[in-house]
Every structure is written in structure tokens, then in C-alpha cells.
């Protein structure tokens, strides 16, 4: 009975967290906001697999703003789902020097982990950024991969 209550509580908490993250995602991609982040679905790098026989799971993200942005920090995190809690796998941060024009984007394509086995695991990415725009710091809230993807890749 106690276990069922704990399980129900954890599920409720996860739903609340997922909803909050979903709202952040929608906000960050809104055209009203000065910056937009996009993050890919977690995927196996096929070219690496073909060339080396080694498999790696990867997420990519970029940030683009409507105004010139400077001091851009773009963070990308790779996560895998767990029975009760999700697990952090790897994260990278790119701190871009100088000014990025509205035509250009700041990219972070360096977040990946090599597979240790073929265990099916569900992965997703999270990206967020901050930048100095129009004289003040702007924060793009967390954006989640559109799909949580099961992949034959244990890490």
C-alpha cells in the first residue's frame, strides 16, 4: 500500500514537471520572444556507425535571435529515461565570443555519448541559453526534444 502511494506520488510529480517543461518549450519557441532555440531528437550518428562500427547517441541544438546577440551561452544536455527518475548522461556548454547577427545562429553540435551495449534506452535532449541583447541579459528557457526516442544504445 505504502509502495503504491509512493509510486503514485512520483508519477504525479513527473507529470507536473513534464507539463512545466512543455510550457517552457512552447514559450522558448514563440515568435514573440527575441530568441529561439531548436534541439534535435536524440539519434544514433549513422555516419560514425558506418565509418567506424562504433555507435553513439547524439543531440544537436542551435539558438537564433531576432536582434544581434552577444556573449551567447548555449547549453545542451543529453538525458535518458528511468523507471522512476530520469538520468543525466552528458552536457556541453558553448560560450560564443563576439556578436552574432540575426542571420546567424549559435550552434552546439558536440553533445554525444558512445554506446556501451545494445540495451534499448529512451533518450532526449534539453537546451537552454542566455545572451546579451539590447543592453540586457535574455534567457531562453529549457526546450525539450520533440520526441523521446528509444534507441538500441546503452550508456
Amino acid at each position: 500500500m505504502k509502495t503504491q502511494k509512493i509510486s503514485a506520488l512520483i508519477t504525479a510529480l513527473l507529470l507536473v514537471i513534464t507539463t512545466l517543461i512543455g510550457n517552457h518549450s512552447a514559450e522558448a519557441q514563440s515568435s514573440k520572444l527575441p530568441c529561439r532555440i531548436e534541439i534535435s531528437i536524440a539519434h544514433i550518428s549513422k555516419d560514425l556507425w558506418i565509418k567506424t562500427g562504433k555507435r553513439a547517441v547524439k543531440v544537436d541544438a542551435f539558438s537564433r535571435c531576432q536582434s544581434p546577440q552577444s556573449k551567447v551561452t548555449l547549453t545542451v544536455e543529453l538525458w535518458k529515461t528511468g523507471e522512476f527518475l530520469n538520468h543525466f548522461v552528458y552536457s556541453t556548454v558553448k560560450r560564443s565570443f563576439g556578436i552574432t547577427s540575426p542571420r546567424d545562429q549559435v550552434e552546439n553540435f558536440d553533445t554525444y555519448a558512445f554506446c556501451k551495449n545494445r540495451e534499448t534506452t529512451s533518450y532526449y535532449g534539453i537546451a537552454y541559453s542566455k545572451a546579451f541583447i539590447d543592453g540586457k541579459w535574455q534567457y531562453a528557457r529549457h526546450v525539450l526534444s520533440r520526441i523521446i526516442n528509444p534507441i538500441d544504445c546503452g550508456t
Partner: protein
Amino acid sequence: MNIDESFLTPAQQIRELEVMTECFRLMQVERSRYELQAAILFERGSFSRQNGNYLLKYKIKDDRFVWHALPASATENSYSGEAPIPKSRTEQIEQLIEFFAQSEVGSMSEGMPRDGSSRYV
């Protein structure tokens, strides 16, 4: 899966392949050096090494391994990465081998040399 897993352009895909192939190569070729670095990190909790134009700083922070790549010039980009610390020592060393390689190729396309011209600080 047919959905858009990655939105990289062909040029970016080539760069991605180069970076990850180099990372995999380093994990094999530099394994002995990385094992030595892992021992240093476990003993000291942190260390730095110069790698071309970048100072690579490594440390153990709470339950994570952390690296920072700091450029010599203030006009270059900087990078960092974090990975969870596994429970067993064997897993920790394997994690660090991948971690060190990732840190060294972290800014590969933007001029970070990987010629072994490094020194510990």
C-alpha cells in the same frame, strides 16, 4: 526512424563525423595517457593541461566530472562539459577516457590543436 532526427546540413554532418571519429580514435590511441590523467584527477580532485591554444581544466564537482576549455585569446569561444560519475572505479576510468577525448575534440573545427603539444599545470 524517418523523422528529422538531426537538422545538420551536409557540411555540418561532415564536421560531426570528423569530430566523433577523432574522439573515437583518441579513446583508443591515447588510452594510456587518459588512464594516467584519470589517476591524477582521482588523486588531486582537479588538474589542468595546456592543449595548443586552449587550457583544459578538469575537476570533480559533487557527483560529476567537469571540463572547461579556456582559450588563450579573449577573442575565441570557450567550451565546457559535464558527465556523471559512475559507481565503480572501472566504470569511472572508462567514463573518463571518453570524457578526456570529448574535451580534446570539443572545439576541433575552431582551431584546437590535437598534436600532443600539451603540458600539465
